């Protein structure tokens, strides 16, 4: 029997039992759509986490003022910061550290012309751009000299640039940060969302000295709530961490047995934890969806078994006029395969459409990858063969004369 005849026969059977074919396919349709959608959401989340991690800066430590209890809560957060500018300089001097920037974070209202915009303000040093791997879109970052002199210069994030300036070139313009005038000298390249979901481009960065004198309360002169530091390589992260701990305990004269008045966090490690969490989440989503695919396959087997029983006489007639066992086997196998693959195609359409909707209406990050499409097609094929085989074999195993006697 010719191969194309098998498809003709299968197609004919599916078309003459339209409703049943549709219901049988439904399981596959839903299964495949679920797999595609779940993988799209999972992989979208993974992609977002990955890009957030990349945008965070690599091999990054964040050193916070204040101790950490065994429970992880930071104490004395509200008191004057325990970290100093010279702590940052000393950390930068460590062999495993490339750059270290003291950071004084806060929020403030920006005004330019008739527009105002609330944003986060970071007072820091030029090392900040190094630590965060943050290139400029235009203009430049401020210098050590600007920090020393407390210059009123500001570098703005892409969102601030857009909100305050629109199409205008911000470089050289004067903005007011909590009433104090600052000259915009640079615009940062866009980075997107951070791991905690904040928009990293909604920010303004100024010399830490200027921030403390003109924007925040001046009580914390020469002190910083945070120091961000970058290690030379990911292999030196552990060595760098103990180096920082030892250095700061020395500088802060913390004796043996006394609690630290600072906390060192390995952000890269935290990020990896976040990444593996999303990976597990997307695996879980995929697994749940895969179960529905298997249920769809069992549905196909179910209907195919019913169909073999109902079509026993047809099978008998086909055998009487010359169908071999393998012709009958192929007929039902191809029928199951056609069902599962058409179901898969419709499911792909729905899944991709659903992912698009989720992405555009719900605003979740989604990513339909060729790998997940290939996987869905491959699995549907296997399901068609696997769950089609048993009914097909029972059809092929019928005795011609018994089959002809069936009603």
């Amino acid at each position: 029997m010719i191969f194309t005849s098998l498809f003709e026969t299968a197609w004919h059977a599916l078309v003459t039992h339209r409703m049943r074919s549709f219901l049988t396919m439904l399981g596959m349709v839903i299964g495949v759509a679920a797999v595609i959608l779940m993988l799209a959401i999972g992989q979208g989340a993974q992609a977002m986490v990955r890009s957030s991690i990349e945008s965070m800066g690599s091999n990054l430590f964040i050193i916070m003022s204040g101790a950490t209890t065994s429970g992880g809560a930071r104490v004395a957060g509200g008191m004057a910061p325990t970290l100093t500018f010279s702590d940052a300089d000393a950390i930068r001097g460590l062999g495993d550290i490339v750059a270290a920037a003291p950071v004084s974070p806060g929020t403030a209202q920006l005004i330019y012309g008739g527009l105002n915009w609330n944003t986060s303000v970071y007072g820091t040093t030029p090392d900040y751009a190094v630590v965060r791997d943050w290139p400029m879109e235009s203009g430049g970052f401020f210098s050590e000299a600007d920090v020393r002199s407390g210059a009123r210069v500001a570098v703005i994030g892409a969102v601030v640039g857009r909100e305050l300036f629109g199409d205008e070139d911000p470089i050289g313009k004067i903005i007011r940060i909590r009433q104090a005038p600052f000259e915009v000298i640079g615009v940062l390249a866009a980075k997107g969302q951070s791991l905690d979901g904040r928009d990293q481009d909604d920010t303004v960065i100024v010399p830490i000295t200027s921030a403390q004198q003109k924007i925040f309360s001046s009580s914390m002169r020469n002190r910083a709530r945070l120091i961000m530091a970058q290690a030379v390589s990911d292999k030196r992260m552990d060595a760098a961490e103990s180096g920082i701990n030892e250095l700061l305990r020395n500088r802060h004269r913390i004796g043996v047995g006394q609690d630290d008045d600072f906390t060192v966090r390995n952000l890269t490690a935290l990020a990896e934890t976040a990444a593996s969490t999303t990976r597990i989440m997307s695996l879980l989503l995929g697994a749940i969806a895969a179960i529905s695919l298997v249920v769809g396959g069992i549905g196909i087997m179910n209907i195919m078994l019913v169909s073999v029983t109902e079509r026993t006489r047809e099978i008998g007639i086909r055998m009487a006029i010359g169908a071999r066992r393998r012709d009958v086997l192929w007929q039902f196998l191809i029928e199951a395969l056609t069902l599962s693959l058409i179901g898969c195609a419709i499911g792909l359409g729905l899944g991709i459409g659903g992912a698009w909707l989720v992405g555009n209406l719900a605003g979740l990050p989604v990513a339909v990858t060729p790998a997940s499409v290939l996987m869905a097609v491959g699995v549907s094929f296997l399901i068609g063969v696997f769950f089609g085989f048993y009914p097909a074999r029972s059809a092929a195993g019928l005795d011609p004369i018994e089959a002809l006697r069936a009603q």
Partner: protein
Amino acid sequence: MATPGKPLIEVVDLEKDYPTGAGVFQALRGVSLSIATGEFVAIMGASGSGKSTFMNLLGCLDRPTRGSYHLDGIDVSRMSSDQLAALRNREIGFVFQGFNLLPKMTSLDNVALPLMYAGMGRQARRQQAQTVLERVGLGERSHHTPLQLSGGQQQRVAIARAMATRPRIIFADEPTGNLDSETSHQVMGLFSQLNRDEGITLVLVTHEADIAAYARRRIRFQDGRVVEDVPQKAVAA
């Protein structure tokens, strides 16, 4: 074609047992006969005498419990189920009392079906099916499904299907059993023509004497045995 001197069909001591609740039932109890190429044989007998059982064995749809069956000199009992399928496909046509057409298919597709199992391409088999349908006088009905045809027309489609692969033998088990008398004679006319013009060997089961009268030999079954086997003068078709 047939080997000279050898009968096309030769059965010796053919027996068929059916397992039943109370032991086995012997539906055939030793049937021996031969049929030559080109014969037109009518098999008669009371209901339950084993005619259908015998036809199913001859048609290679079933296997005997004991005894031998040579078709064109070849021992059928040694054949695999695939070989039997090929034999049914190419050498044998079967016509049933209940037509046994596939209800969702057009006449053309029904007739083309054996050609599909013979490995013929779609275009070629549709062409040949159309030719055969014309041969049975249903060229105009090729796109009708069985439900859109009368009983006589359905049986003619079934005959066309049996003829499609140009087999040497056609077995027909009460082919007129579901037809009225006038249609029955039309169908029998067609059978006679096939036998006379195309040399197809015909074995046909019937209850009715006027149907059996088309054949040139009459075999009577009773309780699984042949009780009469006589030549007769065929009526003109």
